[in-house]
C-alpha cells in the first residue's frame, strides 16, 4: 500500500517542449471510427495504447471502476491530512477544480500548459518573486476565473493551517504558505507572490503551486461566505478567511449533500457533480459546458462505480459491465480473457518507489550503527532480486526501481546511475562486501563482526566485536506482494549470513507505531519495515522525507551531503538540481528500493481519445474529458 501523494516536496515549474494534451477536434465524419496510425508502446509499460480513432465521436456515459475503499469522501479542494488521497484529488476533485498547473502528461510527470488555467509563472528578484497570470477561463456560473480566485485559495490555506497544521495535507511549518511575505493583484489576471527567500522555480511550481497542494483558483464569488445564505465576505481579512474555511470544511464533511449543495456546483474544471451516493461512494459527473480547457468534441458523463473487492471488479470486466476498469497485478494472467471481451489494456508503474525502510535509530543489536554503514546497505541491495520479483510475483508486469526516482515511467530528472541497477542481485557480492568490512560470514548461519573499529576493513563505528548481523523486518500483509518479496529477501540474506526475522503487521498499525518521529518510544522495536512505498511529486525531491528532521521521515536517515543536495533542490536556481540529489541517494541507498508493479487499466475498444489521457490512468489521473465513443 502507498501513501497518498501527500508528501511535501519541491515543485518545479513548467518543463517546456512537452507534447501536451491538446484539444481534440478531429473533423467529424459519418460512420464508425478507425485508428489513425499504430498503437503507442512506452518503455517499461505493459501493453499499448491505441492512437486516437478518427471519425465519428459520440457522447454517452462512461463507467469507471473504483477500487475497494477508494470512493471519494472529501470534496473541498483544500484537503486535510486525514482525507488526503489520490482518490479524493486527482481522480475526483481535479475533474471539477483544476490545479493551477497540470503536471501529468500521460505517464510523464511534466507540465501540460494547455490544461493549466494559468500561464507559465515568471520568477524574478532572485527567484523571490513569482508572477502568475491567469488565462481567460470561466467558472460554470459564467464569471471569469481571476487572480483573486487564486489569492482566495491561498488565503483559505493560510487560515486553515493557522487553526491546525493538519488542515492542509501538504503543509509543513516554515514552508508554503508561511514563506509568502505578501500577495498582490496588480490587475485582474495577475497574482504576485513575494517570498521570504529564493526558491527553486522548478520545485515551487510543480509541488506547491499545483500538484502537491494542490493550489488552484477557487470561486471566491460563490464561496467567500460563512453560511449558506450569508453575504460574500472579504476573504483577505484573516478573521473572515477563518470563518469561510470553517464553513467550507463543514460543508465538505456533509457527504450526503455533495451533489445537492450549490457550493459544489461552481466549477472551472471539465465536470460538475450531478449525483453522489453516501453509502457506496458512487458518483456521476456531467460535463461543465463552460469549461475553458481542452476536451473532446463531445464530452460524456462519467460515472464512478465502486467495487467491494478486486474479484468483483474483475467479474465486471469479464462481463463487459464496466467501461474503464483496473486489472490488479495478481490478475495479469486473465488479461487475454479480458481483451477477448473487447478491452484495450495498458499498464505502467505509478511514479514513485516501493521500499523497505531502515531504522537508523534502532539500538537493538547495534542495528543503528550497522544501518549507518554504507557497505551494509549496499550488501542488502545486492540481496534483492528485483527482476525475480517482477517475474515471479508480478507476472512480469512491473518495473525496477534503484533509487528514489524509478526507472519507469521515464522522468526528465532520472539520473544516469538510476537507469540501471548500481547494485545488481548477487549474493556473492553481498558476502564480499561484508567480509571486506570486518564480518565473518557464515552462510546459513549468522554473521559476526570480528574486526571492530573505524578503519578500513573494519565493521564501523559503534559496532563492537561479536555483534551479530541479525534484526527484524516488519511488513504489511496487504498487499501480499510485500510478504512475498521480503520472504525471498530473507531467504537470500540467509545465504549471506544475514539473519532477518520477519514479522507481519498491517499498514495502519505500522504507520502509527513504527515511524521514529511519530512513535519515538518504539524506536528500538523495529529495524526495517515494509508497508509499500510513496508516490513522487513531478519534481521528485525527497526533501521533507529524507532530510534530517524531515516532517515525513520514517527511520531518521541523516546525511549531510544529502541534506545539502535536497536543500539545493528546493532553493537553488538550478531547475534540475533534483537530478544531483537523486544521483547521490541512488548510490547512498537510504532505503532498500524495490520494484513497482504496473498499475494496469482496461478500457473498452469503442472508447477512444488522446492516448495520453489513457496513459495517465496509470498515474491515478482521470481525464475523461478527452474520451469519446466511436460507436
Amino acid at each position, binding site marked *: 500500500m502507498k501513501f497518498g501523494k*501527500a508528501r*511535501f516536496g519541491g515543485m518545479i515549474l513548467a518543463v517546456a517542449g512537452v507534447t501536451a494534451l491538446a484539444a481534440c477536434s478531429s473533423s467529424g465524419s459519418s460512420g464508425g471510427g478507425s485508428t489513425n496510425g499504430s498503437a503507442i508502446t512506452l518503455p517499461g509499460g505493459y501493453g499499448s495504447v491505441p492512437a486516437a480513432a478518427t471519425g465519428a465521436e459520440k457522447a454517452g456515459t462512461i463507467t469507471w471502476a473504483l477500487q*475497494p*475503499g477508494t470512493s471519494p*469522501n*472529501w470534496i473541498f479542494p483544500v484537503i*486535510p*491530512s*486525514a*482525507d*488526503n488521497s489520490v482518490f479524493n484529488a486527482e481522480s475526483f476533485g481535479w475533474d471539477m477544480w483544476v490545479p493551477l498547473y497540470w503536471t501529468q502528461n500521460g505517464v510523464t510527470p511534466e507540465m501540460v500548459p494547455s490544461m493549466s488555467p494559468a500561464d507559465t509563472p515568471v520568477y524574478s528578484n532572485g527567484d523571490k518573486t513569482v508572477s502568475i497570470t491567469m488565462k481567460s477561463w470561466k467558472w460554470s456560473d459564467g464569471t471569469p476565473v481571476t487572480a483573486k480566485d487564486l489569492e482566495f485559495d491561498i488565503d483559505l490555506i493560510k487560515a486553515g493551517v493557522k487553526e*491546525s*497544521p*493538519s488542515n492542509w*495535507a501538504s*503543509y*509543513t511549518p516554515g514552508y508554503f504558505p508561511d514563506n509568502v511575505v505578501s500577495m498582490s493583484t496588480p490587475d485582474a489576471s495577475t497574482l504576485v507572490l513575494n517570498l521570504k527567500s529564493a526558491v527553486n522555480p522548478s520545485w515551487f511550481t510543480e509541488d506547491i503551486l499545483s500538484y502537491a497542494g494542490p493550489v488552484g483558483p477557487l470561486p471566491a464569488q460563490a464561496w467567500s461566505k460563512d453560511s449558506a445564505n450569508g453575504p460574500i465576505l472579504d476573504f483577505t481579512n484573516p478573521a473572515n478567511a477563518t470563518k469561510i474555511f470553517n464553513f467550507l470544511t463543514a460543508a*465538505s*464533511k456533509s*457527504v*450526503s449533500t455533495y451533489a445537492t449543495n450549490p457550493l459544489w456546483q461552481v466549477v472551472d474544471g471539465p465536470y460538475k457533480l450531478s449525483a453522489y*451516493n*453516501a*453509502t*457506496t461512494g*458512487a458518483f456521476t459527473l456531467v460535463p461543465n459546458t463552460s469549461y475553458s480547457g481542452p476536451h473532446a468534441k463531445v464530452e460524456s458523463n462519467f460515472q464512478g462505480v*465502486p*467495487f*467491494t*473487492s478486486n*474479484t*468483483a*471488479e474483475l*467479474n*465486471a470486466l*469479464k*462481463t463487459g*459491465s464496466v467501461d474503464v476498469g483496473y486489472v490488479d497485478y495478481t490478475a495479469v494472467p486473465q488479461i487475454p480473457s479480458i481483451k477477448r471481451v473487447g478491452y484495450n489494456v495498458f499498464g505502467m508503474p505509478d511514479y514513485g518507489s516501493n521500499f523497505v525502510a531502515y531504522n537508523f535509530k534502532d539500538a537493538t543489536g547495534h542495528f543503528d550503527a550497522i544501518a549507518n554503514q554504507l557497505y551494509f546497505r549496499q550488501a542488502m541491495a545486492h540481496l534483492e532480486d528485483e527482476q525475480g520479483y517482477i517475474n515471479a510475483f508480478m507476472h512480469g508486469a512491473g518495473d525496477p526501481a534503484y533509487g528514489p526516482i524509478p526507472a519507469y515511467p521515464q522522468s526528465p530528472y532520472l539520473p544516469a546511475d538510476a537507469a540501471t541497477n548500481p547494485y545488481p542481485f548477487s549474493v556473492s557480492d553481498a558476502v564480499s562486501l561484508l567480509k571486506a568490512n570486518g564480518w565473518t560470514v557464515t552462510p546459513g548461519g549468522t554473521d559476526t563482526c570480528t574486526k571492530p573499529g573505524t578503519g578500513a576493513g573494519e565493521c564501523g563505528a559503534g559496532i563492537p566485536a561479536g555483534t551479530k548481523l541479525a534484526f527484524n523486518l516488519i511488513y504489511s500483509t*496487504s498487499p501480499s506482494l510485500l510478504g512475498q518479496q521480503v520472504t525471498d529477501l530473507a531467504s537470500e540474506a540467509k545465504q549471506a549470513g544475514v539473519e532477518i526475522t520477519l514479522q507481519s503487521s*498491517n*499498514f*495502519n*498499525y505500522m*504507520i*502509527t507505531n513504527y*515511524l521514529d*518521529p*511519530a512513535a*519515538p518510544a518504539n524506536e528500538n522495536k523495529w529495524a526495517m519495515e515494509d508497508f509499500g512505498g510513496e508516490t513522487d511529486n513531478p519534481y521528485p525531491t525527497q526533501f521533507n522525507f529524507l532530510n534530517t528532521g524531515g*516532517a*515525513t521521515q520514517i527511520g531518521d536517515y541523516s546525511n549531510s551531503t544529502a541534506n545539502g543536495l535536497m536543500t539545493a533542490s528546493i532553493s537553488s536556481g538550478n531547475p534540475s538540481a533534483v537530478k544531483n540529489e537523486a544521483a547521490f541517494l541512488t548510490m547512498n541507498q537510504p532505503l532498500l528500493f524495490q520494484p513497482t508493479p504496473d498499475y494496469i487499466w482496461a478500457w473498452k475498444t469503442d472508447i477512444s481519445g488522446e492516448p495520453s489521457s489513457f496513459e495517465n490512468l496509470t498515474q491515478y489521473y482521470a481525464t475523461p474529458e478527452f474520451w469519446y465513443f466511436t460507436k
Partner: protein
Amino acid sequence: MIAYIIRRIGTSVIVVIGVSIVIFVLLHEIYPSPARDVLGLKATLAQVNAWNKANGYDAPVIVQYLRYVGHLLQGNLGYSYAENQSVAALFQERVARSAYLSGMSLLLAIVIAIPLGIYQAVRRNSVGDNVATSLAFVTYSMPVFFLGLILIQVFALSWPVLGFEASQSTSVLTVMGDWHDMLLPILTLALITVASFSRYMRSSAMDVLAQDYIKVARAKGLPERLVLLRHLLRNACLPIITLIGLSIPNLLAGNLITESLFNYQGLGLLFFNSLSKADYPTLLAYTLIGAVFVVIGNFVADLALSAADPRIRLV
C-alpha cells in the same frame, strides 16, 4: 415465565455491559485516540497531545467509557473519521441490506433443510439419502468464497442467466425485488447453511422416528403424512430452533466474504473496511451491537424452544 424473562433481561444487560467494558478497554489499548488519523503523520507529539486534550482523549479510560455509554444511550454511536460520517449513519445505510441478505438465505436454508433432513431420515441409507449426504459434506467443507466463485462462473459468466454481482440499489425494496441479481449471493449463503442444518435435521428426525409414540401413531393407522407432520416435525425441529437463534447475529455481520464477492455494500464489508482502516469508533459500535444480537438470539432461541416443546419449562 414472567420472572424468568425479567431475570433473563437482567443477566443479558450485565453480559452486554461486561462485553462493552472488555471491548472498550482492549480497543483503547490498541488505539488510544484517533488523533493521528485526523492530524496526519506530520503532526508532532505536541499537536497530538493538544488534540487529545481538546477532544477528551486524555481523560482516564473509565471516564472515557462512561462518556461513551452516555452517548450510546442517546443513540450516538460515535463519528467515523475514516468515512467522514457518523457511525449511526453508516449502520443505517447498510443494516437493511445485510438483514435482507442474511434473512433470505436463512429462510431459504430452513425451507430446504427441514424437509430434506426429514426425507433423509425416513429414507435413510437409500440412494437419495447417500447422495444428499455426499453433497452436504462437499458443500459444508467448501469455503464460502469458493462456492460463490463457482456459482458466478457457471451461472453468470459461462452461462449468463443470473447477475454476477448483487443488486446495487440502496433501496432495500428494490433489492428485494431484484431476484436476478440477488439469487446467487443468497444461494451461496443458503447452500452452506443447508448442508449443516440438514445434517442436524436428519439426525434429530432419526431419533424421533425411534420413539414409541411414532410407532403407536403408525400402529393406530395414522397416514404417514400426518405422522411426519404432526409428530415428527415439531419434535425434530428443536435443534433447528436453537441453530436459528444462534444465527441471528449473522444478520449483522455474517456476510463479509459474500458481500465482497458480489459487490454488495453491507455491514460485513463495513466491518472489514473498518478493520483495515483502523476505524475504531465503527469497530467498537459494531462489536457492541454484535454482543446485543448474540444475547437476543440466545434469548429468542430459549423462548422458541419453550414454545415448541411444552416439556421445557423456563424457570
